């Protein structure tokens, strides 16, 4: 009886592996095709054989020759870094105000924040664009960063996180006469590091991949972020599938690296209610 069970369990685990491996292959196959195609000469992109007969490593260099790809990288990272820092900071402060401070009107305002989380971004996009036009921020880094620097979701997430941190500590500090700013910086923020890191990684990846807002805001070539640069590359040089794939590989690599490095925070973020992915 027991032996039979054991064998059953073993067989099951074998099949589990088979299914998981095929699922993984399904997930990875397009990437494999992408990498291989990025190393082919153009004439071979259409061939049935996925492996290049001639490995063209210089395809990657050619991407940099045809479009200012380094500039796109810089812009994406630059914008994402600013957005991330500002979002984390403003959300942490607001989260602290909602989670740890008591003041009249707090719960009402918090409900307003919560309510707006359901509003599709498209609704606010149109007036925001017009606002940018009127503030003459069209086609500028400020126009890319500022509207993205405030997040109701981030506020919500950090509030939940701060609620879960034991309040006894800052109550004790308060009795010792510490000011709210001291409590915020010296007690609450250090305790919330994992939450901050989670929000940071989500915000960074979100901004790095953000497409709609830069698409309508950016006019000059030297302000293009990676997704916009990719779109431009596709429209203008779209027939050079091999170079396009090389660019895609370079676009995806930082995301993969960031994900593998920060997986712990990533998983936590999703469990905290992150909707992305």
């Amino acid at each position: 009886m027991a032996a039979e069970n054991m064998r059953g369990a073993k067989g099951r685990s074998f099949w589990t592996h088979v299914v998981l491996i095929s699922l993984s292959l399904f997930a990875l196959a397009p990437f494999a095709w992408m990498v291989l195609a990025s190393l082919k000469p153009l004439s071979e992109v259409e061939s049935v054989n996925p492996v290049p007969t001639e490995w063209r490593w210089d395809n990657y260099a050619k991407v940099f020759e045809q479009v200012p790809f380094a500039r796109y990288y810089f812009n994406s990272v630059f914008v994402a870094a600013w957005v991330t820092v500002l979002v984390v900071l403003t959300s942490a402060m607001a989260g602290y105000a909602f989670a740890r401070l008591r003041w009249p009107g707090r719960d009402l305002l918090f409900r307003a924040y919560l309510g707006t989380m359901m509003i599709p971004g498209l609704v606010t996009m149109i007036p925001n664009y017009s606002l940018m036009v009127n503030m003459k921020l069209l086609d500028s880094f400020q126009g890319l960063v500022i509207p993205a620097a405030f997040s109701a979701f981030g506020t919500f997430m950090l509030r939940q996180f701060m609620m879960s941190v034991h309040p006894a500590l800052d109550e004790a500090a308060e009795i010792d006469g510490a000011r709210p700013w001291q409590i915020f910086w010296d007690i609450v923020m250090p305790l919330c590091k994992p939450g901050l890191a989670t929000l940071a990684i989500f915000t960074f990846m979100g901004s790095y991949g953000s497409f709609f807002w830069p698409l309508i805001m950016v006019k000059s070539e030297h302000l293009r972020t990676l997704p916009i640069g990719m779109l431009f590359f596709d429209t203008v040089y779209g027939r050079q599938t091999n170079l396009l794939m090389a660019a895609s590989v370079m676009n995806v690599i930082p995301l993969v690296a960031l994900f593998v490095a920060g997986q712990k925070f990533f998983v936590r973020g999703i469990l905290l209610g992150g909707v992305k992915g």
Partner: protein
Amino acid sequence: MRTFFSATFAVLLLLCVVAWKIQPPPPGGSRTTLTWSTDNNPTRQEQVALFNKLNPDLYLMIDPNNTDQQKVIVQAIGGVGPDVFDTFGQASLEAYVRAGVAWDITEAMTEAGIEIPKIIWPVAVPSCVYKERYYGFPCNVNANAMWFNKDIFDKAGVPYPKPGWSWDDLIRIAKQLTVKGRDGKIQQFGLYFGWTNWGDRNDLLYQFGARIFNDDGTRCEIGSPEAIEAMQLSQDLMYKHRVTPSPIDEAALSTQGGWGSGGITYLMGGRVAMAYGGRWWLNLIRKEKPDLNLGVVEMPYAKVPSLAGGARCALVNRNSPKREAALRFIKYLASPEYNQLLNDQADALAPVMASAYTERFLHNPEWPKEDYNEVWREVVRKARPDELSPFLRGGEMSAISTQFDLIKSNLKAPAAALRDAERAGNDRILRNARLRPALNKLYLELTGSKP
């Protein structure tokens, strides 16, 4: 924590400095920089270079990525608009004028002795003159004719098409020159016809005597028997005679790599024997395939010898602080230097009519094989501007063009599609005339009745 955030901010500020440092410097140095929103290509670069040579205190540069009409307007309002931008016909000129973005240059031009409507090709006038006020000057003027690859004809032993040929002739020839590969897929098509191109489509409609709108644009007339006949022909070319690539065929054709798009690529690559296009195709052909033996003949005309032509005109941004300098570019477009350069480059035809009535235009010694320039002159002379309705905006034409797409994909018979297109067009016209106060007034003026 505080230190961490302060350090991060320090790094970010450093990055700002970097971002500021790696900003491309103004390319003209100390010269006044002008931006021209237009499509970029090697000929445009030469045109700009000549301007910059003739005007040592100015530096003109091209912005190829923001040529959309609405984009130009919004950017001009947002203070980041170009100094000079292009318009393609009456509708877009009207939009720019109404948005307050186009600068009225009538006085300046008259003072300089440039009577725009008298010296440019008639087909270009509606693109730069609105209600008898001048707003710009054409950069070039285009009308299409049939390119044919003499080598393919010679190899198949088919005589070249001659002026005055008929559609039956064309279909017969195209069938002879359509070649299937061993796998049954068509390797070489007899004819390429630019279906996605609004202008090419209109050429076909016009020569069948069809109209898109009535004279004052208060009614859409695309459902007429003439239009149906024209569109039936175009559908048949793709699906019945199989001499013209359908959208699916094109997806297979267009993967062949290389630069450029559609008809030119197929013609240069020997994938089509005949292709309907403009003189500007030479831009690419001269560079990429100078050995190709090509001929040009007017398209067969079904009923009326009529076709659509277009002009690209440059306008000055009224909100630009550099508009006086930009005005010098407009004058440059009227100059003999520019017109000769343009005709030499074969970037379609130069705007000033007289420039095409020269020996140098007809037989440029540098390009002795191009013995067909008279054909280009003739088609531009015959061409008439696109029909438009003041009651429809650019985007609203989609109500009509959707139906064309259905015909093109063989999803709908032309008769039904055009009937629906006409109804959709008229619905839009009436609705706009009802809803928009300015159009309401115009409708009343034109028809004497309320919409």
